[in-house]
């Protein structure tokens, strides 16, 4: 009898441990990013992204998609195109050189409350025999220009399936499908996928002052997931 209870207990413990370990732990926004609620930054200077992929044009293209979602989260976003030209005018073409710059300098120079660094981690197209996909992955880090401390950080990847829909069975159907997939994958614009990635990543940022939920989203849960399809 005792043995039976013990073994049941063991099985129960086994399951509890297994499942609680797997489930992503939801945190409240103020637990995950407490400094955002203390400092309440309003204006954010987005630096040109740092491209860690082999796609040479990823940086230019990605930078066209970030102002919209960040402003909709309630922040003042400095005009990215203008900033990028000012930096070039100062002889700064690569943000890499700015990563080690003291964030407080951006307060002195532009009056920004926060500075956003973005690394493009993935930006690629893949095809295989009967399918294909486009992947965009980014890591965003917001630092305070008052304390120099990180305020918010999140990483996200979107994999968009570009496999063409079914077109009949048989060998001919397969060939047609392969051709259609190749065409669709090549023509897929990165912009909508980059936008989706941004929206996913920015869901976790506490709302800024221009957002109706500013300071009311402390108890909202954020789940630290990294990839969605």
């Amino acid at each position, binding site marked *: 009898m005792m043995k039976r209870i013990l073994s049941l207990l063991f099985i129960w413990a086994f399951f509890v441990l297994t499942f609680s370990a797997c489930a992503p732990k939801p945190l409240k926004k103020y637990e995950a990013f407490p400094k955002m609620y203390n400092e309440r930054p*309003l*204006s954010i200077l987005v630096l040109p992204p740092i491209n860690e992929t082999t796609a040479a*044009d990823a940086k*230019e*293209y990605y930078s*066209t*998609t970030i*102002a*919209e979602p960040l*402003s*909709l989260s*309630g*922040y*003042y*976003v*400095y*005009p*990215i*195109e*203008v900033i990028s*030209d*000012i930096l070039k*005018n100062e002889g700064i073409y690569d943000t890499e050189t700015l990563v080690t710059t003291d964030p407080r300098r951006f307060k002195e*120079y*532009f*009056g*920004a*409350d926060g500075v956003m660094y973005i690394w493009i981690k993935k930006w690629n197209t893949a095809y295989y025999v009967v399918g294909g996909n486009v992947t965009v992955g980014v890591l965003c880090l917001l630092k305070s220009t008052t304390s120099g401390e990180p305020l918010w950080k999140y990483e996200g990847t979107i994999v968009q399936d570009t496999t063409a829909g079914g077109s009949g069975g048989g060998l001919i159907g397969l060939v047609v499908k392969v051709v259609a997939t190749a065409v669709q994958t090549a023509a897929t*614009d990165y*912009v909508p996928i980059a*936008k989706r990635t941004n929206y996913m990543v920015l869901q976790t940022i506490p709302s800024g002052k*221009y*957002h*109706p939920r500013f300071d009311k989203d402390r108890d909202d849960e954020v789940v630290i997931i990294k990839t969605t399809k």
Partner: protein
Amino acid sequence: MKKTGLLMLLLFIFLFGCATQKPLYYWGDYSSSLYKYKKVPNEENLKTHKVVLVNIIEESNKMNLKVPPGVYCEYGYLLLKDGKKEEAMYYFDLEEKNYPESRQFLERFKAKFIEKKGN
């Protein structure tokens, strides 16, 4: 009969109850026209992007929304590149009026790109 009225009322609440939250900004085709211009930076694509910026300003005003952050400034910057200094200043001032936090940045920008060139 009474039942239908109630049902209609419920339907009404259902349909309009959730539609009250206005979007914060109208961004139009901003990223797609900018993307096209960056991909093929010719006159035509630049013109399209300018039209998109003007459209964002006009639509936002129609919808009674604030023009999104940076849009006045970006449009002013493009005008400045065309040598339209007066018009550019007008848009920079609108940016500052809408978003006072942009002041320090705009001051520095004007000092660098306008006064220095002295025309």
